[in-house]
């Protein structure tokens, strides 16, 4: 009857409307994020201004006459947020022509705000400067101002930076941004635990074999429950990149321009990482790692994990949450106990395409990345400056940083390719896939390598 038909019609209409709305996910997100940004823009500008009265008082020019540039970053809280705030303040004080307005923009997956940048560039309203993870920038180089000419004019070149910092900012000879900072990894170990099981706390493991032996000694099992793990290779910063390079693998072949994530040494590294899971039981380790918290609850800080690959920023966290922790820092072990290296990440400052104040933006980027004042503010986050001389200055008197400063010049960076984000995602999953028997290390890495190379090929065409 009529009612029945009506209900059916209503059902059908609803279904159609709803089904169509999924398709708009793609198209609409652009609009939404743009609106979001506009709102954030206003609120930040409002809140930032009264914050720094010192800034206006020390300047000779009234604020209105300065050139305003907008700086996007994704660090809002803690030491990193502090470092951004301080950097901008210092820069604004250091000169009289440019007023940088920092703007926090939330990340959208990974460590980047790229989708928002892309929509802003496509919409013709980009920020003047943005902080970005270096490994991903080649992927959206179409949205960037290439900086070769400006760098050449102002005598900025590779000699000022670590090799990893400079090289990771260049794609096929084009300078995509200036390197800003670096994050390095090493082995942190609990000296008290070492003493407890009769290991020498001043002789941390140097080879993979020693590392394995120590890890077994340090692990404590009570009943069928682990009370303490000696080491969980992939926990913390034990990425496949960290171990792959330690094992002597290469992720990229410069000559062919192909990704080589299935390099025999990397397969070896992944096999080793995952064999660990089998020794201790994947279920138990998973239980442990997925229960682990961060900060004060970090298992290394709370003494539930004796050795861990992590970054130098952990020093500051330990100082904050458990200053009494008796720990040491050593190289990431390698198979032969020689040729220590570290996996270095970090950010660059980029200038999007189509900015209105290119010269002013460049001035700010230069100050942040190549001036002692700008670079030494990296001390706030406990990460490294991209300029070697600055690190010696800010960390030279802290013995805990010695290992890092020693291996930094040998640091390795992720390949600069057109599919950096995908490669990161895929490699981050690899240990998990192998441990859960989705394939052997070789099979999984072959598949990933193939996928990334195809993707790069596709983007090059």
């Amino acid at each position, binding site marked *: 009857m009529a009612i*029945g038909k009506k209900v059916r019609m209503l059902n059908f209409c609803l279904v159609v409307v709803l089904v169509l709305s999924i398709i708009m996910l793609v198209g609409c997100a652009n609009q939404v994020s743009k609106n979001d940004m506009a709102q954030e823009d206003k609120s930040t500008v409002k809140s930032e201004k009264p914050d720094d009265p010192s800034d206006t008082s020390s300047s000779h020019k009234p604020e209105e006459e300065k050139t305003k540039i907008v700086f996007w970053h994704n660090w809002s809280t803690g030491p990193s947020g502090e470092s951004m705030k301080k950097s901008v303040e210092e820069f604004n004080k250091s000169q009289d022509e440019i007023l940088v307005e920092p703007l926090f923009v939330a990340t959208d997956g990974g460590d980047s705000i790229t989708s928002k940048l892309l929509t802003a560039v496509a919409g013709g309203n980009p920020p003047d400067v943005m902080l970005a993870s270096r490994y991903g920038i080649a992927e959206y180089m179409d949205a960037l101002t290439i900086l070769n000419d400006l760098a050449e004019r102002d005598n900025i070149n590779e000699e000022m930076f670590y090799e990893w910092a400079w090289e990771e900012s260049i794609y096929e000879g084009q300078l995509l941004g200036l390197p800003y900072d670096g994050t390095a990894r090493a082995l942190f170990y609990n000296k008290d635990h070492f003493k407890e099981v009769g290991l020498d706390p001043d002789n941390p493991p140097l080879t993979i074999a020693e590392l394995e032996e120590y890890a077994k000694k340090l692990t404590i099992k009570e009943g069928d429950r682990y009370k303490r793990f000696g080491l969980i290779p992939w926990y913390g910063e034990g990425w496949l990149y960290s171990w792959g390079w330690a094992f002597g693998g290469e992720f990229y072949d410069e000559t062919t321009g192909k990704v080589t994530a299935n390099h025999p040494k990397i397969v070896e590294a992944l096999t080793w990482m995952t064999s660990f899971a089998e020794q201790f039981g994947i279920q138990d380790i998973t239980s442990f790692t*997925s*229960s682990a918290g961060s900060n004060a609850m970090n298992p290394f800080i709370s003494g539930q994990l004796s050795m861990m690959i992590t970054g130098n920023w952990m020093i500051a966290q330990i100082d904050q949450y458990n200053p009494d922790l008796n720990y040491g820092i050593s190289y990431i072990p390698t198979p032969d106990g020689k040729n220590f290296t570290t996996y270095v990440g970090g950010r660059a400052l980029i200038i999007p395409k189509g900015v209105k104040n290119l010269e002013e933006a460049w001035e700010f980027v230069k100050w942040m990345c190549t001036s002692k004042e700008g670079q030494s503010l990296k001390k706030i986050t406990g990460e490294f400056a991209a300029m070697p001389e600055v690190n010696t200055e800010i960390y030279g008197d802290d013995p805990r940083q010695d290992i890092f400063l020693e291996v930094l010049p040998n640091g390795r960076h992720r390949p600069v390719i057109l599919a950096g984000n995908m490669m990161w995602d895929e490699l981050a*999953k690899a240990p998990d896939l192998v441990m*859960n028997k989705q394939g052997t290390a070789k099979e999984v890495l072959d598949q990933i390598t193939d996928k990334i190379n195809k993707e790069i090929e596709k983007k090059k065409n």
Partner: protein
Amino acid sequence: MLELLVKNKTTKWIKPKLQSGIESRRAKYGYIFASLWITGLLLFYAYPLISSIYYSFTSYNVVSPARWIGLENYIELFSDPVFWIGIENTLYYALLSVPISVILGIFLAILLNMPIRGQGIFRTIFFIPTLVPVVATAIIWQWLLNPQFGLVNYLLATIGINGPPWLGDPVWSKPSLILMAQWGIGNSIIIYLAGLQDISKDYDDAARVDGASGLRKVWSITLPLLTPVIFFNMVMGIINALQVFTLPYALTYGTGNPANSLLFYSMYLYNNAFLYMNMGYASAMAWILFIVIMVITLILFRSSDRWVYYHGD
């Protein structure tokens, strides 16, 4: 829903013959009021929708001009293992979560429809979780399901069961997610309740006179008369389940861990669009999803003749 209401209202105004000047003037205002919505629909819905068809045949990264590549995106998708993982996970999720939510929803609705003391309070209790934002739900459940310190495994341990790592284990992760999704069942309960109250008391009285038991009444009277509502909730449930995104995305930060077991179709679509700069590829994925949902929905509609009874049909 709202859009539909507005639409219905305007058509109601226009439909009757325009007998007097008042009516035609009213119609004019109707158009004026509706025009805002229509403009919005064309600009923000119709335009992106249509352009996404075009982009699905191109290589497009948002900043550079799109390059026509014909069917390449579609061809590539079918040989992309992650695409198939996404489909598999999504179908698994839909196949389990929809029946569970239908059965659980009806069961709870029938209970909540019983005239007992505190009925309103119980109804409120079951509805409250739907007011919690999805991201907050994800965090709450992450704590509840924490393998070592979580409440769920603690309770299991008290009866001697060693709980699994839940979200950390690829076997248990999807069931965990389905469990979490039932947290938001309050919305469908409300629709079932409305449907239940729509059933005339006369049938019930007649059955009682004939001596039917309570269970028999539910099976032979309530359920058949509730089928239009069940059908509606099922269709909506399937559409939502096939697009599941927010909960697993918030839980895994978009990675789909462990071992890709929580990588759902929409998440891979989103990552391609906004992380890997493959807007064309993502558009193609969106259209494949559209076709899949359309086909499943049409099949459901076809089957509805056999099992859905409308009042008075």
